[in-house]
């Protein structure tokens, strides 16, 4: 494969904010977009190191996010502690199958799939892998889009706490799992935005 005409190979920089393509300055240093004055980089700075840092922190927090209760319900009958998974189970056993599946996907599958996918992407770039660049780019696009939906449970807990805390018969409080889970969502979003999909393609042109 011959070297494809990329902006970087032609000494051009593409602005990630306004998409203007401009000539890279001859003498190193920080380049700024002539149109929107954003700082320009050929590739996102320290992309892999940042991605790994966010990703590994997210993986560590994923354990308490799922083990600790995200919600405590106290009523006359005692206290019930709900984790994310038991919340899904509750929806399922009470007959809301569609919502149970929805929450299962948004809260359990999406964060897990996102962390696995980012690990695969970052590792493949690190190993300078050449397999299926198009599929890997598409994978990146999907996880970047899907990640936000994991916030679902955070909003559910917020509303339940707000509505049920005034009642004398029951009260709902946010558990420590909620903060851990919120952190996982935020960290995986940071990990995804730190990763630069252009790195997937950079090694390809080097081969004869």
């Amino acid at each position, binding site marked *: 494969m011959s070297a*494809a*005409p*990329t*902006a*970087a190979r*032609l000494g*051009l920089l*593409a602005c*990630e*904010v*306004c*998409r203007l*393509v401009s000539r890279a300055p001859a003498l190193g240093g920080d380049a700024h977009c002539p*149109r*929107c*004055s954003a700082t320009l980089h050929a590739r996102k700075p320290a992309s892999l190191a940042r991605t790994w840092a966010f990703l590994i922190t997210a993986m560590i927090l994923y354990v308490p996010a799922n083990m600790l209760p995200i919600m405590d319900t106290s009523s006359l009958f005692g206290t019930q502690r709900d984790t994310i998974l038991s919340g899904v189970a*509750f*929806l399922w056993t*009470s007959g*809301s199958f569609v*919502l149970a599946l*929805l929450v299962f996907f948004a809260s359990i599958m999406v964060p897990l799939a996102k962390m696995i996918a980012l690990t695969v992407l970052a590792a493949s770039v690190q190993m300078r892998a050449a397999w299926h*660049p*198009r599929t890997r*780019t*598409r994978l990146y*696009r999907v996880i970047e889009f899907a990640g*936000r*939906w994991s*916030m*679902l449970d*955070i*909003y*559910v*807990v*917020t*509303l*339940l*706490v*707000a*509505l*049920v*805390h*005034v*009642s004398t018969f*029951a009260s709902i*409080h*946010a558990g420590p799992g*909620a*903060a851990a889970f*919120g*952190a996982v969502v*935020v960290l995986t*979003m940071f990990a995804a*935005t730190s990763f630069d*999909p*252009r790195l*997937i*393609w*950079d090694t390809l042109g080097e081969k004869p």
Partner: protein
Amino acid sequence: MSASPPVACLECDLLHRRSPLPPGGEARCTRCGACLYRWARPDANERALALALAACILFVVANVFPIVGLEIQGVHSSATLIGAARSLWDDGARAVALLVFVTTVLVPAAELIGITWVLAALRRGRRGWGAVPLLHFIESVKPWGMVEVFVLGVLVALVKLTHVASVEPGAGLFAFGALMLLIAASAAAFDADAAWAQLEAGR
């Protein structure tokens, strides 16, 4: 415009020449398939402005009226979004409360007011004060506005609560539903390329 400038794929860095698109079309990267740019109607930003303005108004309505009302054994309670974030804060879950506030109130509000300001100034043939940093800011916080996820969260919470109490959806919920659609429509209509070109020409 002079010879149309090239466009680089943000996902694989391949350079492409711009070519005119048929109405409704979009240009995709020949190497990785990412969207490079979309066809935009000539009045795209007029529409985006009208939709953003409507969204600003609905945003106020959505935040003033309660989202859900609830009755458990004679005790009535209701919550607005900001009230809900507040009770979470008072409950001690401050980081989570802050996350909710930022993603559903602060970022969407900043985005809507910002885009309305920038587009309204451009419509009058001016470069609004601070338009460039503002548009820059809007583009960078975009992933953190999560109104549509919140709306789904309200629905899940409603279903959960119907098992223990009688719930009635409030006016705020319907306003949030409409707000979600307006934000999506305004974002889809917005022609960032044209806005940036206009801002550049006006300097």
